[in-house]
C-alpha cells in the first residue's frame, strides 16, 4: 500500500517554507526514501520490544540546583540574536493585531 504524502501539510507542521516547485521535488524524494523504508515490513518483529536507547541508562537525574558555571550573562545570551530590544529577544508576532 502506498501512502499519499501530504507534502504541504508536513511543511506546515515542520514550519518549513517551501515553494510549489520544491513540493514536487520533495514528494518524489520522500517516495524514494519510503520505498527503502517499506522493506522493513518484511521483517518479523512479533514479540520484539523496541530499543529507543542502547546504553541501558534510565531516569538519569541531576540535583535541582542552579549551575552557575553554565550561566550566561544577559549580554552573552543576546549576543547571537538577530533582533533585541531593551535586553529582550524580539520574536515574530504570533497574535494578530485586530
Amino acid at each position, binding site marked *: 500500500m502506498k501512502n499519499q504524502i501530504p507534502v504541504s501539510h508536513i*511543511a506546515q507542521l515542520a514550519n518549513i517554507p517551501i515553494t510549489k516547485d520544491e513540493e514536487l521535488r520533495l514528494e518524489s524524494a520522500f517516495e524514494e526514501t519510503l520505498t527503502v*523504508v517499506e522493506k522493513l515490513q518484511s521483517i518479523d518483529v512479533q514479540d520484539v520490544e523496541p530499543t529507543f536507547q542502547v546504553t541501558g541508562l534510565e531516569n538519569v537525574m541531576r540535583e535541582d540546583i542552579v549551575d552557575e558555571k553554565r550561566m550566561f550573562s544577559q549580554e552573552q545570551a543576546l549576543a547571537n540574536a538577530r533582533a533585541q530590544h531593551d535586553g529582550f529577544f524580539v520574536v515574530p508576532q504570533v497574535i494578530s493585531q485586530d
Partner: protein
Amino acid sequence: MLNTLTLSQVLKKLKNKEISHKELFADLGAATAAQNKKLNVFLTMNENAEIEAETALGKTLMGVPLAVKDNFCTQGIRTTASSTVLDTFIPPYDSTVSRKLKEAGAVIQGKTNMDAWAHGSSTETSQYGRTLNPRNPEYLPGGSSGGSAAAVAADMSIAAIGSETAGSIRQPSAWCGTVGLKPTYGRVSRYGVVAMASSTDSPGPITKTVEDATIVLNHIAGHDEYDATSSQTPIDNYTAALDQSIAGLKVGVIYMDIPGLAEVKSLFESQLKVFEELGAHVEYANAMDPNHAVGAYTVVQRAEVSSNLGRFTGVRYGEDRSYFGDEAKRRIMLGTYILSKGYSDQYYVMAQKVRTLFLQDFVQLFQKYDVLISLTSPGFAKKVGASEASAMFGELEDMLVEPSSITGLPGMNVPCYRDPKTNLYLGMNIMAPMWHESKMISVADAFEKHTNWNPWRNAEQK
C-alpha cells in the same frame, strides 16, 4: 615539513625541544594556504591558535593544533554546522569535547567543512560548497566529517575531531585514507555538539595513525554530567592497547555477500591473511542483513532530526527556517511525517524493534568472536557530484557501518588498500562489543603495523 608528522611524533619532538611551535604553525599554515582554497577543508581558522599554543606547552597536548568539525560549539569561534542558518553564530560556550581538549593543552586550529547538519556522506550538502578528496580531487572525501578527514589526509592538520551518527567518522576516513574511531555511544559526551540523531551521535578522532587516535580518545572519553546519556562505565588507557599480541583472537568477517562489492571484495579479502599471520583465527560469519539497518536507521535518524532541528527558529541565534538547505528540509519533513499521528507505529516503533534485532544479532556474534570486521564503505570514494543523484546516497554508502551505529557499538576505520591508479584508499571497519574500544584498537594497531597501507607509517619506515 612538520605538518606531515603524526600527533605522537609532534608531541615527542615538542617535548624534546627538537621543534618549536613557530616551526610547526608555519608548516601547517603553509600547507593550509596552499590547499584550502582548492580543497575547501576549513570554513573558519582560529587566528589566535599560535598564541594560545604558547600558554599550553606545560600540558599533555603541548599546544598542538587540532582541526575540529564545525558542529562542535567552540567558545568565541564561529560554528555553522555548514549551514547558513548558523552563518554568524558564535557560541558563548564550549562543547565538552573541545573544552576537554583545551584543558589537556590542545588548541583549535580551525573548523572543518561537513555535510550541513551532518546530513550526508559526501560534504556535498554543505551550504559552503563541497570539500574535495586530497588523495584525488576529482573525488569526494565522504562525510559528514569530510573536512576533518581531508584536513588530516592533506597534512593540513596533525589530527582532527569528527562526529559520527552512522558512518560520519569511518566513511570519510575510508575514502581519505585516514584512521577514524567511532567510540561506543555514550563514551564521549555529546554536550555542545549540534545534535543530529541523539540516540546515535558519537564524537571521535580522525587521525593519521591508530596510536594518534588513542591519544585523542584518552582525552575526550568519559562521563559528563552535562550529557545524561554519557556513561559512567570506567574508561581504559587506550594507548595501553597498542602493541598487544592478537594471537588467538577470533575475528569474524561479515557483510561479504552483499551485492555490489565487486572488485573491492577480493581486494579486502586479500588482506585477511594478515590476521592469520598475526596468529588470529579468521572466519566468515553470518550477520543480519545490513540492508535492514538502512531502513531502520533512516527512520530513527529522520525522526530525531525533525525533533532536534525544531529549535532553530532564528530568535535566540541563527537565521530563520527558510535558510535550511534541500537535504535538511527533506530530513526534517520526512521525520515530521514519520512521527505524525497514524504513522509513528508503522515507521518509528517498527524501526526501533528492528534495532533490537540487530542488538540481539551482535550479542550472538560477540559470543563467538572477539571483534568483527567488514569493509567500511562498499567501494572507493565516489566522483564529485555523485550525491546529487539520489536522496538515499548517504544511507547506501554507509550501509556497512549502519548496523553497528544503531546498536551503539564502537568501530574504527583503518586503511587496508590503496589503488595505485587513482591513489584512492579502501578502509577496513573493525567493530567490538560496547565499551571494548581497547580490543578493536589492538587489532587495528596490529594490522596497521603489519602492513604498508598507512601512508604515514609507510613514510616513517622509509
